[in-house]
């Protein structure tokens, strides 16, 4: 056994131990989706085990109306849109993106952190700097820090266009949807760093759903899957933290306190799920002046889904990317139709980049395959 590859050994044990298991599992973190596809974990599972990707990519769950709003703002005089790079190619309501808006003269700059956007605002007082605040609980405290910094330094030309999401209402919407029957959940590792493992206790307690928090290395994902499959095989439903080196029971208390100070729970709009009460983060009244919707008196827009695009179904694990007529044809990473093809964490992009060898060989242009 010492000569063998330990990961191969682990996979082989899994395949033997759970060969007869029939279950549907879901992960809800875009980074997990990416690693699973890259390591072809989904193909190495026994036949009876389905592994779906859930609403774990913040870019993918953001409605097209939000992008439309950002595109419009980028055309306003003196406005500089700052954003994480993943949002640049996401189509808005009219199949146009922030990249297109930039080509049309819009001021758009990619930043590594919203704190850099605050610094740009400080050094460019003649500009209105807007940061596109997209993300889950992992990113919310970082955006809160940027707001706190702007407030402390009296920076008045910095605002956030908010689309921050809280994961729990979306998971509960999935779990009460009769067309999806999940037997187990891989909980998101880095989101849990902030919320703490205990925040996922409701899944086994209220829904009887076996739940495992795990890390991002290939071996860690197998570790999580093994723990989950063991629970299912034994008829148990509990919360297991297989990523304790980063995730504590209570989470990052400083981050949680900051989120409570700066934000107020609000409705959130999710692609595929619509508006879910309590699933978004708006601003506390002390921070309302940093809300771009208030500053620029924005009217709410309606999201328009691209015709034929299945992103809304794919996000919920109800459809696979290969079922979409656009997938790999009209929708590819260089010209995405829907958001799941844009972000490297999107389910469609992960399926596209790590298609099976045969599909890759059939593909005429494989130059951008990772």
């Amino acid at each position: 056994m010492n000569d063998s590859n330990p990961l191969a050994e682990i996979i082989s044990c899994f395949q033997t131990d759970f060969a007869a298991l029939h279950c549907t599992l879901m992960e809800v973190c875009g980074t997990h989706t990416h690693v699973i596809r890259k390591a072809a974990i989904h193909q190495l599972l026994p036949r009876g085990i389905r592994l779906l990707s859930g609403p774990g990519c913040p870019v993918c769950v953001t409605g097209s109306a939000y992008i439309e709003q950002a595109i419009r703002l980028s055309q306003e005089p003196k406005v500089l849109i700052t954003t994480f790079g993943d949002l640049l190619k996401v189509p808005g309501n009219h199949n146009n993106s922030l990249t297109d808006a930039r080509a049309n003269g819009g001021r758009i700059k990619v930043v590594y952190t919203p704190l850099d956007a605050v610094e740009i605002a400080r050094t460019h007082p003649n500009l209105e700097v807007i940061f596109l605040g997209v993300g889950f609980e992992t990113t919310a405290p970082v955006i809160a820090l940027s707001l706190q910094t702007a407030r402390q330094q009296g920076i008045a030309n910095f605002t956030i266009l908010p689309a921050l999401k809280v994961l729990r209402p979306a998971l509960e919407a999935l779990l009460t949807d009769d067309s999806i029957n999940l037997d187990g959940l891989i909980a998101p590792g880095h989101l849990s760093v902030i919320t703490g493992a205990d925040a996922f206790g409701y899944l086994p307690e209220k829904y009887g759903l076996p739940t495992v928090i795990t890390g991002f290395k290939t071996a860690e994902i197998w570790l999580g899957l093994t723990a989950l499959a063991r629970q299912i095989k034994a008829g148990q439903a509990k919360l297991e933290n297989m990523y304790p080196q980063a995730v504590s029971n209570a989470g990052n208390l400083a981050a949680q306190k900051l989120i409570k100070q700066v934000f107020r729970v609000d409705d959130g709009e999710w692609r595929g799920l619509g508006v879910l009460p309590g699933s978004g983060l708006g601003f506390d009244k002390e921070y309302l002046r940093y809300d771009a919707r208030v500053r620029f008196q924005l009217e709410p827009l309606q999201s328009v889904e691209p015709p034929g695009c299945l992103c809304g179904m794919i996000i919920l694990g109800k459809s696979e990317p290969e079922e979409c007529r656009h997938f790999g044809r009209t929708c590819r990473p260089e010209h995405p139709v829907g958001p799941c093809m844009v972000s490297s964490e999107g389910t469609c992009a992960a399926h596209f980049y790590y298609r099976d060898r045969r599909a890759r060989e059939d593909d005429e242009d494989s130059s951008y395959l990772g």
Partner: protein
Amino acid sequence: MCLAIPGELIRITGDKGEVSFSGVCREVDLRLVPEAVVGDYLLVHAGCAIQIVPADEAKLTLELWNQIMPGVAEDER
């Protein structure tokens, strides 16, 4: 987007720290991990440290393997 990368904290200046990611250094906000000290390994998300992680993280993963599948992880040592 929830990606977080571990790096070593090599200097602290007020609320900010310099973190080395396999030799590439970046300024990182430390306000979410105020207890961090030089030498700590930090998980960094969007320019902010969000957690202190043990330097021997890999060893911990192995310990978990040993709990769940005794014997298998021994080979990884």
